[in-house]
């Protein structure tokens, strides 16, 4: 990740009555990166995105997108000129045809890429004259993505972009995200499909109950997170393994399983000191990291 950031928030919070949707979020999204925004349903991902786009006002804190303050209406409008957003429910005007929708969106952006528009129209097999309300969910998702990609924005914000797409569509989407990033577009997307995230993301942020639990590069996660399964001659003392980097410890009789975000070597050393019968260190998938992180909290 470069030092330059496209999204930066400081103690960003949003409350609805007594409920806190987002709590003191300090988010930093790098330029030219694909950043995945992960979290369970209701974790505050969509609320955060809506605050970034000026649709809702933060209760506290501040933030900038492409250097523009999110709470300043005019700055936010200028920022939206350079940002493409696809919302979770892929909203489109049902009374317009596909062609009318494209013409409507095109009129707001001087840097609209007709070549991308035509290519995607063809690749997605979208019927130009059909009313949007009669399109299938997958087709609507494709049209929403076309509108975002043809903009050729500086920043793409996508909320659950693969929802409603078939496997072929998902594959196309992932490739397009990678090629967009290669062309200098920063991508910030939320998803529940962790396998997809693992394939394309450079960076992940995990949100749980409005708090940012993890902000790390995917490479860093792959290199440092480990699961260590050990068997001892007698039930092992858990406290011996409570060291820096150990996130969770599960013990069942003589067996112990440790999930570590770093310091796997130190854990192995301790296990050997305690005469472990067997020690197995395995890399963990992003899915496991996500599940362990949210479960722990």
């Amino acid at each position, binding site marked *: 990740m470069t030092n330059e950031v496209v999204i930066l928030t400081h103690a960003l919070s949003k409350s609805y009555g007594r409920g806190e949707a987002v709590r003191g979020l300090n988010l930093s999204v790098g330029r030219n990166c694909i950043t995945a925004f992960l979290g369970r349903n209701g974790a505050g991902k969509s609320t955060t995105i*809506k605050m970034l*786009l*000026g*649709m*809702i*006002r933060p209760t506290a804190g501040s933030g900038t997108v492409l250097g523009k303050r999110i709470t300043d*209406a*005019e700055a936010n*409008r*200028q920022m*939206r*000129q350079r*940002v*493409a*957003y696809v*919302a979770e*429910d892929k*909203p*489109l*005007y*049902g*009374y*317009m045809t596909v062609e*009318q929708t494209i*013409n*409507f*969106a095109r*009129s*707001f*952006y001087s840097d609209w890429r007709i070549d991308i528009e035509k290519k995607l129209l063809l690749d997605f097999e979208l019927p130009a004259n059909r009313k949007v309300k009669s399109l299938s969910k997958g087709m609507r998702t494709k049209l929403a993505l076309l509108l975002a990609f043809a903009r050729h924005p500086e920043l793409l914000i996508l909320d659950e972009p693969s929802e409603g797409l078939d496997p072929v569509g998902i594959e196309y989407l992932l490739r397009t995200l990678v090629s967009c990033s290669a062309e200098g577009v920063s991508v910030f997307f939320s998803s529940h499909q962790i396998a997809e995230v693992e394939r394309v993301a450079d960076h992940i942020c995990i949100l749980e109950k409005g708090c940012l639990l993890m902000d790390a590069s995917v490479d860093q996660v792959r290199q440092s997170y480990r699961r260590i399964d050990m068997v001892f001659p007698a039930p092992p003392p858990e406290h011996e393994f409570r060291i820096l980097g150990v996130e969770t410890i599960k013990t069942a009789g003589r067996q112990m399983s440790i999930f570590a975000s770093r310091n796997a070597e130190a854990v192995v050393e301790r296990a050997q000191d305690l005469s472990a019968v067997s020690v197995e260190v395995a890399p963990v998938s992003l899915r496991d990291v996500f599940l362990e992180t949210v479960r722990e909290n």
Partner: protein
Amino acid sequence: MLWYKAWLETRSRFLTCLVTLTIFSSVFVHHALHISCLNTLPCSEKISSKFTPEFHRLLFINQQYVVIIWILAVVLLGMGGIVCEKALGTSSLTLALPISRARLMRVRVATGVFQAIALGVVPWVTVFVISSRAGMPISITQVASYVLLLIGGGLVYFAMAILISSLVSGEYTAPALAFGVVLLAAMLFDNWLRRFNVWRLVTGDLSIDRSTFLLSKHLPWLGILASLFFAVLMVLASIRAIQRREF
């Protein structure tokens, strides 16, 4: 293209109301011709001078019915917008566009005003053209006065619909509430505030000469201006509400 969107959004409502009003006005002229034939049996080409006040009375009655349909139409045209889009789930597409909320509202209001004017002008032009061709005693000044009263005095109903649709979400809640307010206001003003009754202003009841059924040359400009002033206030309040609202 925001104008185009506003047009696509409202065109079916607008065209339905326009056709209804135009057909109604044409039927009115046909009815007037029928009455004139009854009055001047055998039906002569020249309209009886006795019929002139009767025709003007019919014009006045026509205005009452046109006003009812026109108010229903402009309240319907005032529905929709970004709050309704929130209920339908499309507001995030509109709000992600690089345009201010105030501009969104301005375009929506301007489109609605043009449509409201068309809904006031077209039926009365129809009445004028058909009546003139049939040799009826109709003057352009009377028609223009009816249109002026209708639009100048009645735009407050449109502004009220815009305000309600900016405050109340729900595809059906907002129109139900707006029609409720129209009825309530009609009853309230008719019973306790007759001098300030917008309905009487718009229908011409405040400026009609009961013997000739002609509108006075001195139109109630103060009433029209006051009505327009409240309309502008309500539109400004709507813009403010939309700017402050969270989606």
